[in-house]
């Protein structure tokens, strides 16, 4: 059976066919408000293919057990699958060692783990650098870290196109800089940031770099060794996996320096009331029973996407982006926020005089799921002086016909609201 799947995927690889791919996603068959669902909120969460759902069902049907501790067969089977998933993730992101992959509940957890770890490393007067286009999850944990340590936060500004101004970033770097954090791709604008340049420049002054890969991972296969990044974070649910699971990649030397984030079972070597010694990597950072099924399904999601091929996915999504950009810009009064040449399939827009909430409410009535609001990136909205945007984000299972429905819906909403 597995062999047959591989064969089918191999065939699809040469002929990328969204009609065939859509059949993998049961949810795409449903209706919303009497209309076929058009799902364009992929940057918030992606949909789940049957191949991943099957893995989840199989786990709970056949080998649900707690891992790492049991000597019984089920526990051993679950442990094997979970650790196999870790290796799949390691290979996908090309980490040098599998223990550099820490399972977390997602990007937010990953960032908090690192921010917490730096509490004992930083001192007053140290500086951290953040980009102007971060998700709140890559701002607030660092602000809390600054409050704990007396370190200060500097911001890399962005231009009207929604691109970071690198000259200003280079000016901000100094021997006081201890950490730089930035997203690989902006969730609100879709901009792909020049992370390699950012990382190399930070390393020259001895600063560590965390790249939030939550929005990049569904579109770009990052190579953490090539990037030479210190920390890279990903959420499985944005790349066809389940919610509540993700990963933190950390260079071994950094993970050895950072203290554990949470105490509990699983993360210890030996416990007495006098002193506890911690387990080796990766378990030092994985206290408590993890999301075992989620971790295994995360691995299955990577298998699924790799079988289709990230180059094929990126090429097709770019086609959707170009088509949607052209069609939407033809609507009078529509402005797109985030107009970098280098962006993923995300379009943030507003119609002059229309509140994004109103637009989103009407599009929902038409069966079209988009995101509206500030996308947890209020500093970006403040930059453009708007309350929020309507964000349509496309995935490889979307089609041009769906974009036509969106364009028609936006026209209709505009006519109703203005």
């Amino acid at each position, binding site marked *: 059976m597995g062999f047959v799947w591989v064969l089918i995927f191999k065939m699809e690889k040469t002929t990328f066919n969204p009609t065939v791919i859509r059949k993998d996603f049961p949810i795409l068959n449903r209706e919303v408000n009497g209309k076929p669902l058009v799902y364009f909120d992929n940057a918030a969460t992606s949909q789940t293919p049957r191949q991943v759902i099957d893995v989840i069902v199989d786990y709970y049907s056949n080998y649900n057990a707690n891992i790492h501790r049991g000597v019984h067969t089920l526990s051993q089977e679950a442990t094997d699958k979970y650790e196999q998933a870790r290796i799949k993730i390691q290979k996908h992101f090309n980490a040098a060692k599998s223990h550099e992959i820490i399972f977390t509940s997602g990007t937010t957890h990953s960032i908090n783990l690192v921010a917490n770890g730096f509490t004992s490393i930083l001192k007053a007067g140290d500086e951290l650098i953040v980009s102007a286009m971060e998700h709140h999850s890559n701002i607030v944990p660092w602000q809390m870290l600054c409050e704990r340590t007396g370190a200060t936060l500097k911001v890399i500004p962005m231009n009207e196109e929604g691109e970071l101004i690198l000259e200003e970033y280079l000016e901000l770097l100094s021997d006081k800089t201890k950490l730089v954090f930035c997203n690989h791709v902006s969730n609100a604008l879709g901009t792909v940031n020049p992370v390699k340049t950012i990382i190399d420049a930070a390393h020259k002054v001895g600063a560590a770099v965390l790249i939030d890969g939550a929005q990049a991972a569904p579109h770009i296969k990052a190579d953490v060794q090539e990037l030479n990044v210190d920390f890279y974070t990903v959420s499985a649910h944005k790349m066809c996996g389940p919610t509540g699971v993700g990963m933190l990649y950390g260079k071994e030397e950094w993970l050895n320096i950072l203290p554990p984030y949470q105490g509990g079972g699983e993360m210890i070597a030996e416990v007495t009331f006098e002193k506890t010694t911690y387990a080796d990597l990766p378990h030092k950072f994985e206290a408590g029973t993890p999301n075992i099924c989620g971790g295994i399904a995360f691995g299955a999601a990577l298998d699924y996407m790799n079988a289709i091929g990230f180059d094929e996915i990126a090429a097709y999504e770019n086609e959707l982006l170009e088509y949607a950009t052209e069609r939407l810009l033809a609507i009078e009064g529509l402005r797109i926020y985030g107009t970098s040449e280098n962006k993923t399939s995300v379009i943030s827009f507003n119609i002059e005089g229309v509140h994004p909430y109103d637009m989103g409410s009407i599009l929902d*009535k038409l069966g079209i799921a988009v995101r509206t609001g500030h996308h947890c990136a209020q500093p970006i909205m403040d930059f453009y002086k708007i309350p929020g945007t309507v964000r349509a984000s496309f995935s490889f299972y979307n089609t041009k016909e769906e974009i036509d429905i969106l364009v028609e819906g936006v026209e209709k909403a505009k006519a*109703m609201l203005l």
Partner: protein
Amino acid sequence: MGIKEIQEEIVDEFSMFEDWMQRYEYMIELGKSLPLIDEKYKTDDNIIKGCQSKVWVHAELDGDKLVFTADSDAIITKGIIAILIRTFSNQKPQDIIDADTDFIDEIGLKEHLSPTRANGLVSMVKQLKMYAIAYQTQLN
């Protein structure tokens, strides 16, 4: 007219509409046409922050009745505010405290008053009731 009667009247009006589009068009009309709040009351103190749209509420006592004015930066939200104001304004505080908003479901706009909807309206209804409780105490 009491709150219950006004709500029945609104349900009657909405029963004429055949589909969601007509209901929304009416809401948008309401939202556009009503001068809801004096600009001087659109202060930060009176703002109710939803995740997506801003809502302002102001309350003052007129005799033994409570008068509300409110506004929002989103037009559909504003339309629902117009309906809520029509229901709750110029009523006795105790009646406002006792009233429910189930009629919103009957006129097919339930989603906007869902506690999980990030538009500030649920907090607004809560705020109207808080004002009513505060002024009721004052009247006692």
